[in-house]
């Protein structure tokens, strides 16, 4: 068995930033395990611009953003193993991983940072009739084919789901000479950014059909057309509105799910809403010594926030392993109510030092002229007015240290929306 002080699982932007901050906090015994043949995670296939505006004050592409962090890892000579897939994490922080050359690795860590990102919702989750010929891809798979392997999945495309990956792929396939016939969205609004709707669809006159879904996929060996229909208020298709669209490719962009099989195996309690771990404000999960950050904790739309969160996780993991003994501190739940779907962290530690903290949250619907309220024992601690909040955009609530102190001494904490 090999021993390391801090083991980081996943070498995407979250894992890289966590490693760098753990190093800068003084720890030298750090190891990153990554299952792909390169560091950088999902950013390697996101060749569009729009990354790092907050961090670097310039718009980078995904690979460029990743490289800035890879360079910092290399400058610090932080160790990493590629082509290494972690298959098991135990509650006592023993880890099993498979490496292409060395076979099975057994590693015992003093702290583990899970930064394994998320994966696309499987297509089984999308209930569509019809045969399953080739030509059906998740948007992320298509993105990998085009941008990493240099292959085009098809020529005439329909996209189901208007999440950012689908929108980005509509433009990308258009650039490569395909005809994108429509983006079909079940809901009456898009979970994608306005910027992507404008610059990926409107710029190329690609129709975005709200409150529509795909009801049938035609074609034996290869998709030849899809049938789409409008849906009613209960999201049931109105068959009288059905229309057929000729295409050879259907891309599914129906959302992302944190990849938490490893956490589950280690006995970490998971949130049914975020699908990530429940964490306290040190980003530690219910299992002492296991931390989470990035898309494995909750799905982020901006990588800048992933990097910030991961930096914190790296620092807190170092503080944790440097404690002479681990004293269990009581935690208070932060309840999400009235329009707020979730808040991360879900728990805040009692009587911890006063320090600044940022709550991250998402709402369940589109709300206009509202405010986000943080309340402790009935007293409003913080209130942030918003012209609009949407499910597609993560909100952040930066709290000052005196506000945080009030939360740490409270018995009940709530975060909710109030119309103004």
């Amino acid at each position, binding site marked *: 068995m090999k021993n390391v002080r801090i083991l980081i699982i996943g070498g995407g932007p979250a894992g890289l930033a966590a490693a760098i901050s753990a190093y800068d906090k003084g720890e030298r015994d750090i190891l990153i395990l990554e299952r792909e043949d390169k560091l950088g995670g999902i950013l*390697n296939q996101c060749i569009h611009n729009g990354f790092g505006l907050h961090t670097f004050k310039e718009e980078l592409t995904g690979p460029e953003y990743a490289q800035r962090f890879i360079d910092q890892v290399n400058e610090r000579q932080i160790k990493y193993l590629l082509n290494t897939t972690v298959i098991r994490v135990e509650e006592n922080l023993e880890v099993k991983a498979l490496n292409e050359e060395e076979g099975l690795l057994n590693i015992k860590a003093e702290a583990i940072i899970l930064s394994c990102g998320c994966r696309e919702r499987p297509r089984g989750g999308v209930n569509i009739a019809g045969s399953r010929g080739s030509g059906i891809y998740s948007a992320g798979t298509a993105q990998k084919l085009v941008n990493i392997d240099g292959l085009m999945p098809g020529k005439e495309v329909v996209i189901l789901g208007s999440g950012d990956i689908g929108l980005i792929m509509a433009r990308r396939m258009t650039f490569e000479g395909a005809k994108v016939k429509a983006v079909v969205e079940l809901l009456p609004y898009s979970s994608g950014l306005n910027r992507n709707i404008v610059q990926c669809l409107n710029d190329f006159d690609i129709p975005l059909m709200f409150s529509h879904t795909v009801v049938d996929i035609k074609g034996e060996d290869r998709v030849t057309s899809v049938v789409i229909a409008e849906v009613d208020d209960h999201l049931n298709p109105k068959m009288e509105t059905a229309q057929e669209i000729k295409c050879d490719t259907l891309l599914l962009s129906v959302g992302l799910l944190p990849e938490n099989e490893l956490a589950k195996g280690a006995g970490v309690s998971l949130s049914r809403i975020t699908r990530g771990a429940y964490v306290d404000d040190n980003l530690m999960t219910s299992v002492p010594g296991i931390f989470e950050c990035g898309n494995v904790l909750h799905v982020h739309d901006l990588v800048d926030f992933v990097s910030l969160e991961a930096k914190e996780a790296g620092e807190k993991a170092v503080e944790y392993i440097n404690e002479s003994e681990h004293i269990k501190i009581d935690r208070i739940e932060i309840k999400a109510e009235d329009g707020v779907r979730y808040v991360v962290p879900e728990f805040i530690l009692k009587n911890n030092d006063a320090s600044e903290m940022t709550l991250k949250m998402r709402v369940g619907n589109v709300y206009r002229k509202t405010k986000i309220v943080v309340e402790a024992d009935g007293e409003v601690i913080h209130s942030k007015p918003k012209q609009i909040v949407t499910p597609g955009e993560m909100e952040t609530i930066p709290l000052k240290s005196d506000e945080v102190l009030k939360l740490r001494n409270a018995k009940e904490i709530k975060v909710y929306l109030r119309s103004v």
Partner: protein
Amino acid sequence: MKEFICINCPLGCHLVVDDSDKNNVKVTGYTCLRGKQYGIDEVLHPKRMVTSSVIVLNGKMPVVSVKTKEAIPKGLIFKSLELLKGLKIEAPVHIGDVVYQNILDTGIDFVATRNVERSK
């Protein structure tokens, strides 16, 4: 009259722009001044960054991702992409390397956005 959605914040105001007089473009529908400026820019000189990829020879990856170093006029997007078709570059390629110089006399280059090392 032209219609746009402002992309500067999630509010996504619907802008209506009257550009019948190029010297006095009128924008309505904005909530803040960023929207007004966006409306004017979109009718007078809309620009976009273009990102795509180019074939690499003898590299560890078959393609390298590229971008326009700065935003180029929106009307030139497809013409600029034409320039990349059939282009093949030798590995190694590094971030910032010029892949195509002076796109359609704009003075702007396509540059690589990924490192691709030689395969052997």
